């Protein structure tokens, strides 16, 4: 009995750790959607981009972490600006299908460029945290998971404070709430759009670094993880930052528990599909998520 509880706790703890990275990716997604109502269907490629660039700066160019991290983030900001200015701004006001497809297109270009520059082999990722597991009561916890959780929580706290207290953060919330009113109050909506893309690429890059060090290597399967953003944001509500954070952790725990308990019965792979089953159920019951704002449509 005690073993079973330990097993379950272990699943939950790993789930929270993995889920916190989903929260980070979902934060980027929600920011873009809130500010500019663009749905980014390539969140995984942004994560992949961050992971590869940090791999290149840390291991390939042998820069110290203190230098490599800012360089990676600066490149991520640049990517955000290029995507927003170059591709999405001309498409403001186009039908949803165009916006969805253009983000698929952007994701495809990023994947191609990464593949062309660095090839598709798995790259060993620098171990940023020690691997030796320690015990939290009876449950063994790996420090990588703990540190990634702590790092994500700190980042999420920082971003929450940014949105709540800084003038720019307030302007972003105002834009998300009502673009016209924000414009008339002197907020540069264009700049906010660009900024939201930059923040999204930066948090995705950080997510990539954390995921890379948790898995000990980067390869293109990281991009598939990005699609887990959809169950998270549907659970939490597409336009809710708090929803993204809670949803990420919940989906992480859900996929780990279902993987741990249903895999022996159903024969593997449940982990990959369980979040999407949850997505369909939530969509049918509460299409606007648990924290989202319902849309009302008039003729």
């Amino acid at each position, binding site marked *: 009995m005690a073993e079973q509880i330990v097993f379950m706790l272990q699943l939950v703890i790993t789930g929270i750790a993995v889920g916190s990275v989903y929260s980070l990716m979902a934060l980027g997604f929600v920011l873009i959607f809130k500010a500019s109502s663009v*749905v980014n269907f390539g969140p995984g490629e942004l994560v992949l981009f961050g992971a590869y660039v940090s791999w290149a700066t840390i291991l390939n160019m042998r820069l110290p972490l203190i230098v490599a991290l800012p360089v990676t983030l600066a490149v991520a900001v640049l990517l955000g600006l290029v995507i927003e200015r170059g*591709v999405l701004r*001309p*498409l403001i006001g*186009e039908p*949803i*299908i*165009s916006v*969805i*497809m*253009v983000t*698929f*297109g*952007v*994701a*495809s*270009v*990023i*994947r*191609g*460029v990464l*593949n*062309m520059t660095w090839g*598709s082999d798995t790259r060993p990722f620098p171990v940023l945290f020690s691997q030796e597991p320690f015990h939290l009561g009876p449950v063994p916890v790996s420090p990588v998971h703990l540190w990634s959780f702590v790092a994500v929580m700190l980042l999420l706290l920082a971003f929450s404070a940014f949105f709540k207290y800084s003038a720019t953060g307030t302007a972003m919330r105002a834009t998300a709430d009502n673009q016209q009113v924000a414009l008339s109050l002197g907020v540069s909506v264009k700049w906010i759009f660009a900024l939201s893309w930059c923040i999204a690429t930066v948090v995705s890059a950080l997510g990539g670094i954390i995921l890379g060090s948790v898995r000990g290597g980067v390869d293109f399967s990281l991009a598939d993880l990005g*699609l887990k953003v*959809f*169950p998270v944001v*549907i659970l939490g509500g*597409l336009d809710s930052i708090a929803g993204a954070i809670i949803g990420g952790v919940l989906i992480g725990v859900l996929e780990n528990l279902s993987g741990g308990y249903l895999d022996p019965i*159903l*024969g*593997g*792979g449940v982990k*990959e*599909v369980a979040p*999407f*089953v949850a*997505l*369909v159920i939530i*969509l*049918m019951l509460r*299409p606007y998520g648990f924290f989202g704002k319902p849309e009302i*449509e*008039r*003729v």
Partner: protein
Amino acid sequence: MKCGGFRVSYRADERVFDTRWPVVGLVLLFVVLALAPRFATTYWLDVLNRIGIAVIGALGLNILVGYTGQISIGQAAFLAVGAYATAILEAKAGLPFFLAIPAAALLTSLFGLVFGLPSLRLKGLYLAIATLAAHFITTYGIVHWERMTNGVLGFNVPPAVLFGVPLDSDARIFYLIWALVIPATLFSKNLFRTKVGRAFIAIRDRDVAASVMGVSLFRYKLLAFLVSSFYAGVAGGLMAHHSRILFPDAFTLLVAIDYLAMIIIGGMGSILGSIYGAIFMTLLPEVLKLGATSLTGVYPNAFGMIASTRDIVFGLAVIFFLMYEPEGLARIWLRVKSYWALWPYSY
């Protein structure tokens, strides 16, 4: 010289071909196609076969996305259901292909109905996400229902047999595929001259307004999913016979994105556009391959670059068309044609 369309009766307005020349062109095209297996190499026959399959799939997707406005990222799942249903009906139930393909297509359209149920409650972005989830659930089912699908080991499909002749070569399957492309195109062209087709378009343009005017959203949205997935089922069945071995890996999310790209690049809400898009997307990797082969002398690594170059070119093409020509190749073709129709006095 034609300088405008003057249609004085409803009959004239509904005509498929305005003049005689497109009909002549089509007949010539059919003759060339019918003779193609005589002189084309196996390689190009294979490409032509894949174009034919892509045309049917793209037509189906365009009916759903381009004409009815229901965004679906589930085309790969539909194709997979059609392909596996055909293969299972033939290999396990022993049906001949001319019964198995329609039966599989019917099964796929039932599957599409289930897929389409969320569309009654969700639309736009939410529907897209729901179909994305349905894609993952379907492929999970195919990989793990090993007793029926053989999972990742692959499913061998027996060749189709017609009057005792096995359709086991590219040249023989060619006729089967293109014999289905022609009625599929005609049906979809005619669909949008009927009440049902107009209802689809009304739903795309504004579903709330359509329902106020008496278009039953329940009925026509589901009907759109039904017709569209029937096409995908036929295309899937042909895929099963064309490749003769089925792997779940042939139906990834990237396939669904490819099909969406076909109708975007070709032209959304255009029959001709679906055909152009299918040709473009099938030829793109082949052209890159040819380019890489000729470059290997100068740059020996060129062959390894094909996959990544394809990703980049594909992405840039999608971005380019969405930004500069949202109506796709069909529109470009129209412009080129009208330019030459009045040339050299283009005023």
